């Protein structure tokens, strides 16, 4: 393995991307290669320098962010409640409309039945009247109106 390959392997190790199986190979090489050991040491120092260079998160900013998120959360909660109320009203209105629809539908069905009954009754009465009319005896109408000024109606039985 050349120097660059060893250094790449060391980089991978420090970045936590080196396969576990390759770790013993790396350490074996480090025990033999002084240049590799030197690079390992330098990289470690660099990483230490970086880790310790991290600044603490400013407290003021922390408070600012958390306050703003809190407000946003409250706003979201209010919107959520408003939406819930709106949904409840909409659902109630829909339910009332549904009940009214069912009520009017059943009423119309009743009217339909009543109308059908009445129609049938009228029809029957009409038939009865027709029968009565047909049951009356035939008549002969004769007359000499001009002469006697009488009209003679004779039933033919």
């Amino acid at each position: 393995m050349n120097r660059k390959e060893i250094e790449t392997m060391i980089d991978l190790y420090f970045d936590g991307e080196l396969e576990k199986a390759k770790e013993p190979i790396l350490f074996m090489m480090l025990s033999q290669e002084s240049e590799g050991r030197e690079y390992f040491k330098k990289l470690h120092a660099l990483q230490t320098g970086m880790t310790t260079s991290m600044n603490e998160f400013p407290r003021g900013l922390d408070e600012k962010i958390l306050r703003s998120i809190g407000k946003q959360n409250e706003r979201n909660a209010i919107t959520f409640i408003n939406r819930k109320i709106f949904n409840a009203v909409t659902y109630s209105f829909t339910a009332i409309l549904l009940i009214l629809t069912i009520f009017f539908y059943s009423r119309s069905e009743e009217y339909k039945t009543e109308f059908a009954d009445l129609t049938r009754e009228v029809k029957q009465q009409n038939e009865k009247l027709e029968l009565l009319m047909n049951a009356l005896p035939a008549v002969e109408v004769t007359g000499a109106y001009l002469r006697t000024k009488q009209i003679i109606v004779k039933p033919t039985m």
Partner: protein
Amino acid sequence: MTKNIVEFTLIYNQQKTRLYNYARKMLGDTMTCEDIIQNVFEKFFENMSSIQNSERVNVWLFTATRNAVFSYYRTKKIRVDQFNVMDTAELEIDSSVKLDEELELKELRELVMNELDKLEVEQRDVFLLKEYGNLSYREISEVMNIDENLVKSRLYKTRQRLIAKLSKVI
């Protein structure tokens, strides 16, 4: 709602220092950095429900911060190559800096920071995402929208450059 705020607080506490340090080192301006970090976390809270996979949170936060940083560069018309202070051939330790072999941690830290400021913005970006963001190569490639191998090679070159600069003291 409560679940959201609890989840947010957990993620916020995990990531805030890393994000802040990344942005601060990329910008060098504390005020702008604080504004950016606040905006990123507010945006994150708004979009939390749409970020389904919790493993993606890291990538989302760093991508949003990085976009904000580069957007700031653009609005301020800061040319990215302005950060390219010196070429590799010109790299030399400032002779006025007297350093002992056993340099104290504080001095080492200051030196690393100085050298970091002199790096090209792409190199600094990848290096900070790795060191401060603690992101994997794949995550960095997603944040920067570049190939994973390019991430590795940029990281390697940056380290070589920094080690070369610091070789006299470490």
